[in-house]
């Protein structure tokens, strides 16, 4: 750049350029694009210097000291802590109320413990110490410490507690127990129970009450309670598998199987099962295999269909 022009630019910035010099500079700026840019740059700088001169003065030292005290000792800090405290209190209140609410919900909707034996016998100790064996395809629901509901076959050895009797809810009644060992079978149409020792009280849904003494065997059909002397093997030795038979009539055997596996028996053949005898033991844990064995022995077809043993002609 021309030294002369530079001088004039400096003079413009300094504010002491003459009129001639200004017009000279204007002519120069028209000569080239760069010149115009340079002139505009100088004008821009000059404007900023002028603007800078109009700025108000502020004491930044004093301001910094003021700010510093705020930073070290913020005036709003107690408000902040109060806010934190409020949030914490709100959280605790919400949390406790929600958990309380859920606990309450939980108490109301707490599902009963359910024990179901499908293809093996289940032997359990209940919370009160009572030993229970649950037969195949049978289900035991624990309603509370001393109250259960049974569907199917089970043997109980109840812990003694005279103050709090043990109750078994059945399909057609209740058994109240003080402390004893007994077996019970319950299904949609029939209930059977056998008392080994102690004393149990049976109450049907129609409020008929009977007391069983050791060795008693009771069947309940349509609300009729019948004491029988001939105790079926499967209840007497409820969970002593395999089932052993000597010249036992076939209908009894099938009845036992039905109880053992908790299935119904349906005879569709024209043969009287009472007139047929069975000797031997059924030691298969799988009902299908047992039925296949029986099918091999007799001139009958034993089939399992929808929880039902169907007997038909071959």
């Amino acid at each position, binding site marked *: 750049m021309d030294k002369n022009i530079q001088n004039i*630019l*400096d003079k413009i*910035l*300094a504010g002491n350029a003459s009129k001639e010099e200004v017009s000279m500079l204007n002519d120069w700026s028209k000569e080239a694009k760069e010149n115009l840019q340079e002139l505009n*740059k*100088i004008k*821009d*700088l000059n*404007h*900023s*210097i002028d*603007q*800078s*001169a109009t*700025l*108000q*003065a*502020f004491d*930044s030292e004093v*301001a*910094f000291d*003021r*700010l*510093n005290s*705020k*930073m*070290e000792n913020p005036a709003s800090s107690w408000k902040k802590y109060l806010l934190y405290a409020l949030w914490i209190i709100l959280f605790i209140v919400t949390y406790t109320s929600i958990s309380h609410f859920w606990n309450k919900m939980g108490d109301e909707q707490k599902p009963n413990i359910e024990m179901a034996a499908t293809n093996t016998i289940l032997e359990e100790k209940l919370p009160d110490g009572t030993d229970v064996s649950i037969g195949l395809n049978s289900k035991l629901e624990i309603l509370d410490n001393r109250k259960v509901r049974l569907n199917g076959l089970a043997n109980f050895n109840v812990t003694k507690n005279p103050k709090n009797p043990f109750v078994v809810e059945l399909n057609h009644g209740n058994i109240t127990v003080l402390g004893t060992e007994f077996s019970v079978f319950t299904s949609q149409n029939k209930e059977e129970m056998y008392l080994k020792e102690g004393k149990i009280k049976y109450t049907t849904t129609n409020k008929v009450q009977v007391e069983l003494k050791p060795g008693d065997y009771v069947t309940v059909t349509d609300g009729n309670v019948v004491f029988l002397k001939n105790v079926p093997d499967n209840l007497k030795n409820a969970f002593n598998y395999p089932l052993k038979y000597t010249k036992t009539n076939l209908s009894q055997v099938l009845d036992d199987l039905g109880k053992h596996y908790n299935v119904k028996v349906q005879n569709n053949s024209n043969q009287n099962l009472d007139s047929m005898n069975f000797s031997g033991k059924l030691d298969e844990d799988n009902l299908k295999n047992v039925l296949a064995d029986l099918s091999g022995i007799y001139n009958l077809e034993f089939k399992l269909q929808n929880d039902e043993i169907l007997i038909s002609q071959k």
Partner: protein
Amino acid sequence: MKDTRFKYFFDNHYQLLCNYIMRLGADYDTSEDVAQEVLLKLWQQKGPFELAYALTCCKNKWIDWCRKTSSDKVRSEKWETLNHNHESQEELDAEFIKINKLNTLVRQLPHKTKEVFIMNKINGLTYSQIAERRNISVKTVENQISTALKFLRENW
């Protein structure tokens, strides 16, 4: 306070931010309050220490302040002042960013040159007044000023 970055930013921009807020329509004391709130916030959130960001913060803080304290009438008057003085917000921001650039350059000048330049250009003293106060010749003042302007022109 140990954050030297913040201290540096504060020292070099506090006056500028106050002036910016005043240009938006605040009075002298309010502009200091607003600027300090913004700077406190910048310190708390550890930056960013950038002028453009700080200007935006100041603007927002000032709007907040107006909402809290002014009646609708006062507020609209303030905004009218603002809009009357400046065609757009960007223009005002650009102006202050340029002033900041100038300040940055001036800070780089040798100490005596800087002093003389500020006395002349910012405080508006004549060469002879400066020469008198500094106990130097007018020629020296002239030389200092021209050195300063040359540096600024070359680096602008």
